[in-house]
């Protein structure tokens, strides 16, 4: 087991390096130049050259890459081109809200998806099953931003029971209840798309398990149907679902960009959009790198968890 984890980590290293290369080059081969942001009618060519020199933009691209990578390994992500703050601080300030949003969304999605998926599988081809299927497709197909705008319209503007956005009431200093109040809508919306696809996975995984011999044995022992499904069945059906969580993390991060923008949630997604419009390359690189790291890490955890939960899996 320990060996398996080590091997899995070793495979992740070249991938991570590849991520840094890809990340660095797409952003730095861009035609735009951060120095463009400083140009005003009074700027002379000498000023521009000095600024370029100061930012290290005159060096060959591979030198810039190794410098960036070297700094990265020391935890130095450079300084933001727009606010001059250390990028690491800028990004770390935003990680919390995004993690809060994403984890709440994931929890909401699973609380909805697991019981519905089970119900849909145990009542296969009934009207409940068709209704769930239709709704799960709706959940997957509705664009996040349309659902978000619609919900703001209904819950914040018409019914006036939830705030339109932000993380806490302006002027107040937040607090748990206030944040929770602001969290409900964005998290539910981010969770919808995930819930839609998860219902399908739970259903098919459950159907697979329900046909197994050991469930027939459990029934033959005289166990109640509820125990058979929810204890013996569900336990085994959940194993493949662990891998699904790993697959859903990148979707969740992408969805967070849109959701945060609509609800003015002060997270990484919102920072991404701001950095794109101000061509703040160091910040963009840091966000992309951290997001990719999160994806790699969640894949790693998924693989390990999978091996822990299912002893039949061979480590090589």
């Amino acid at each position, binding site marked *: 087991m320990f060996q398996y984890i080590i091997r899995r980590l070793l495979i992740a290293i070249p991938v991570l390096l*590849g991520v840094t290369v890809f990340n660095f080059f*797409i952003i730095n081969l861009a035609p735009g130049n951060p120095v463009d942001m400083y140009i005003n009618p009074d700027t002379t060519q000498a000023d521009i050259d000095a600024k370029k020199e100061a930012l290290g933009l005159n060096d060959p691209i591979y030198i810039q890459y190794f410098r960036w990578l070297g700094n990265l390994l020391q935890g130095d992500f450079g300084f933001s081109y727009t606010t001059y703050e250390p990028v690491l601080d800028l990004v770390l300030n935003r990680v919390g809200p995004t993690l809060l949003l994403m984890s709440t969304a994931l929890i909401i999605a699973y609380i909805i998806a697991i019981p519905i998926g089970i119900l849909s599988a145990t009542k296969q081809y009934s009207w409940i099953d068709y209704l769930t299927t239709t709704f799960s497709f709706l959940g997957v197909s509705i664009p996040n931003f349309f659902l978000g705008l*619609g919900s703001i319209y209904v819950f914040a503007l018409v019914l006036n029971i939830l705030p339109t956005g932000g993380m806490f009431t302006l002027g107040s200093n937040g607090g748990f209840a206030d944040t929770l109040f602001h969290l409900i809508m964005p998290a539910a919306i981010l969770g919808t798309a995930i819930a839609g696809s998860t219902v399908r996975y739970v259903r098919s995984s459950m159907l697979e398990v329900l046909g197994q011999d050991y469930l027939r044995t459990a029934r033959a022992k005289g166990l109640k149907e509820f125990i058979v499904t929810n204890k013996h069945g569900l336990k085994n059906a959940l194993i493949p679902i662990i891998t699904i969580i790993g697959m859903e993390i990148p979707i969740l991060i992408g969805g967070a960009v849109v959701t945060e923008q609509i609800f003015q949630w002060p997270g990484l997604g919102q920072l991404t959009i701001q950095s*794109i419009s101000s061509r703040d390359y160091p910040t963009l690189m840091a966000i992309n790198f951290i*997001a*990719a790291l999160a994806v790699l890490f969640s894949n790693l955890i998924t693989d390990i968890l999978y091996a822990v939960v299912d002893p039949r899996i061979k480590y090589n």
Partner: protein
Amino acid sequence: MSIPNVKMDTDLPVNNVVIPVQEQLGNEESYLKLITKRFFKHKLAVGGLIIFSLMVLIAVFAPVIAPHNPYSVDGEFAAPPSAVNILGTDEVGRDLFSRLLYAARVSLSVGVGAVAIYVAIGTILGAIAGYFGKWVDMVIMRITDIFMSFPYLMVILVLVSIMGPSLFNVILVLGLLGWPSIARLVRGCVLTIKEMDYVKAGVALGYSTPKIVFQHILPNCIAPILVNATFGIASAIIMEASLSFLGMGVQPPTASWGNMLNEAQSITVLATQPWLWIPPGVMILLAVLSINFMGDGLRDAMDPKSLK
């Protein structure tokens, strides 16, 4: 399109599950007939097909159907629906109904264009990795891992904004980044098929490698590719809409359902001018939903496990 002589007596990996095949089918005609028959039994899929066909008709005949020029400013600003402008006008006085129709062209071309590009890339890379194996496979699969590590929407946002947001660039970026899942799928399929005796016979007969890969192996992988591509069109349409909504996709004056919703980011528009944002949102939902239903129908119809 024609599905070449597909012999379904192999283990086809559909959705990463290797499914034992129970069907022995003689020729392509009966296979196509069987799939069509199964597809039309799937009510939601048929509904999806009808709505999708309507969308295609709207896109093709937009200039004929549209009552106004989608680019000309001839109405009042943000006028509510009336007899002249049946869905009202937008913030600069263009007819919304006409723009809605023209936007179907954008969404469908992004869907089909992007998926065509990435299916081509993914199929070729996956086939090379699966057929040659060893270090070639290793390298291609690690590159696939790298591409899969980035949160899709974030990289697309960055790339599109670097290349300059436009319809062409959106198609290109979605196409260049979407291939990893197809590559994995094709690789898995090729790995299974290449061990079959008839492929070995082809090698023994001295056929060229491209001929073996493209004519003898890949036709057996068409079913899963087709299913994956159908769902891919739906997600490409959502992706374009999201990008355009964020202002990083198709730029006005070109109409896209996504950029028509962009204005609704303002609370005033959201609250007082629902005709501006509800219709394009519903159109995206309808387009994506209908394609997803079709994909589901296709998957069920091509699933060798089902016996119907």
